[in-house]
């Protein structure tokens, strides 16, 4: 851990995509330590650390690992999710590009703990340069006896491969990712069976996010209590917050779980350009329902955000200033889901399209009296009726903006309808 208390940031700042730099940070010492422990001991340490999945769902990592059946007759796989495509999220890009070796070390520890000898890193196809960096670091690790046969001189064998996606947000959903990795289109699977029982190639599989795995080596090195104590009661450690939109200093900030949202916006990200007022903020990637300015004293903790009806998700904070037209903002959000719906489930395929069409029509001067109610009802009818959470997110986002900012939506609608009737040819003739 560095002087300023950050864990992964110093690795990123010191180009730990190169092995010689990572060695200066006790690189691969944690893996050596873990390989001397029993598998169960490693899982227990991670459980005690309160490390939770940092990709979006926030599931406790150690508990997930413990779901792998003991003495499986089939091979076990570890899959790293670097599909990072949730709008507002860009943290994993930094880890895989510049702290690559801590990810590889985390992969060794996690693979050992779950009994995997093959790991695939699934990276979004657009991340061309980050994928090259991972390939280069993997090669360095093989050449140094860190990967391959007899990892770090032990009897443990491990192969790690990069697998590039090809442009589909849905592949960030773990079962869609597994189908994609099997060479199929990225359609989510029904659960159960959960991947830990039947995942990649119908074998027990753990899918973990990049950042989650990157925190494993420091946890093993410094002990679970050290990590747990930094965070909140049920969510340990630090994490990366990405902040973008109308702020002075957009970027990633590694801070303790539970850092207040207000502090994120006004201290770390330097506030809003031009001293403008805050209108709305999305706390955890575009799928997290929006918050009003009077709600930003909430700590960035999964439980605290869930309590006020939103979620920490990928911790990608999107800030909107007072000039933002929220009808347009909702359209930009919904257009995304419509574009990215995998089309497997009818409520999502059709529903996201209807939401998009209504919003596009509203914004091109064709607003109708019942539009807001329709948006709300369609949102409701998608929710809970699809295999994966993409449709749920679209529904929650549509309802979220209307719930929190109904006044603005109604004002836009009446203004737009008034303008339409003033321009209608029949009225002009009558006057």
């Amino acid at each position, binding site marked *: 851990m560095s002087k300023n208390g950050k864990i992964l940031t110093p690795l990123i700042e010191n180009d730990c995509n190169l092995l010689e730099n990572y060695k200066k940070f006790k690189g691969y010492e944690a893996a050596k330590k873990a390989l001397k422990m029993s598998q169960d001991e490693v899982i227990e340490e991670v459980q005690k650390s309160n490390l939770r999945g940092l990709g979006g769902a926030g599931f406790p990592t150690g508990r997930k690992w413990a779901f792998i059946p003991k003495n499986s007759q089939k*091979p076990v796989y570890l899959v790293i999710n670097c599909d*990072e*495509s*949730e*709008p*507002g*999220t*860009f943290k*994993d*890009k930094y880890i895989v590009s510049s702290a690559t070796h801590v990810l590889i070390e985390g992969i060794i520890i996690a693979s050992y703990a779950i009994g995997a000898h093959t790991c695939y890193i699934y990276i*979004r*196809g*657009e*991340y*061309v*340069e980050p994928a090259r960096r991972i390939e280069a670091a993997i090669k360095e690790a093989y050449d140094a006896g860190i990967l391959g046969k007899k990892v770090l001189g032990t009897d443990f064998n491990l192969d790690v*491969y990069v*697998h*590039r*996606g*090809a*442009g*589909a*947000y849905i592949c960030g959903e773990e079962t869609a990712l597994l189908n*994609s*990795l*099997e*060479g*199929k*289109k*990225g359609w989510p699977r029904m659960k159960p069976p959960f991947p830990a029982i039947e995942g990649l*190639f119908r074998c027990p599989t753990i899918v973990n996010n990049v950042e989650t795995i990157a925190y494993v080596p420091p946890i093993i090195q410094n002990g679970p209590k050290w990590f747990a104590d930094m965070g909140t009661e049920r969510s340990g450690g630090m994490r990366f917050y*990405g*902040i*973008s*939109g*109308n702020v002075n200093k*957009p*970027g*990633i900030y590694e801070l303790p779980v539970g850092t207040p949202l207000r502090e994120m916006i006004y201290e770390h990200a330097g506030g809003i350009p031009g001293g403008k007022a805050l209108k709305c903020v*999305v706390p955890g990637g*575009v799928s997290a329902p929006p918050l009003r300015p009077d709600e930003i004293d909430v700590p960035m903790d999964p439980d605290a955000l869930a309590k006020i009806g939103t979620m920490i998700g990928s911790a*990608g904070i*999107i800030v*909107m200033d007072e000039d*933002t037209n929220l009808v*347009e*903002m909702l359209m*930009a*959000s919904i*257009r*995304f889901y419509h*574009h*990215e719906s*995998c089309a497997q489930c009818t409520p999502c395929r059709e529903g996201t399209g209807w939401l998009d069409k209504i919003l596009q029509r509203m914004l091109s001067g064709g607003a109708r009296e019942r539009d807001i109610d329709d948006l709300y009802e369609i949102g409701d009818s998608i929710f809970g009726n699809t295999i994966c959470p993409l449709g749920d997110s679209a529904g929650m986002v549509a309802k979220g903006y209307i719930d929190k900012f109904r006044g603005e939506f109604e004002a836009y609608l009446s203004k737009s309808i008034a303008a339409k009737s003033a321009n209608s040819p029949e009225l002009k003739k009558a006057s």
Partner: protein
Amino acid sequence: MSFELTKESKLVIDELLTRYPNKRAAALPVLHVVQKQHGYIPAEAEPLVAEILEVPPVKIREVLMFYTLFLQKEIGKNHLQVCRSVSCWLRGADRIIKQINEKLGIHDGETTSDKQFTLTEVECLGDCEHAPMMQLNDDYIGDLTAEKVDEIIGKKGQ
């Protein structure tokens, strides 16, 4: 018209196939190799890829139609993929797109007649801290301004 893999592509594909317990799993990586060699994935390549992966050709077609990065026709030398998602939209992505529309006379999905540029409006590329941004072929270019866009178009268009 027939499609053939170069010797280099074949070598890369042979190695890729060793990474998975079955051949079909190499579909995405193999299609990336084909696209890298040819610029896009011609229809003639589909039966060849299907043969390598030991699946019916329809399974390849299905994959090609699902993933946006696989191109099925020739595009311009410079592929301008401008992000229009929320964070870029908040910082003026619309202005960048409009500037390209006017300057090059192309809209989403279109290519200039001299085959120099193709414009695609894309969803979030994970570079929100540099909004508004675009991907030019493989590279990310962030903090776009009108001047920067002019410069990109001017330099690449020669």
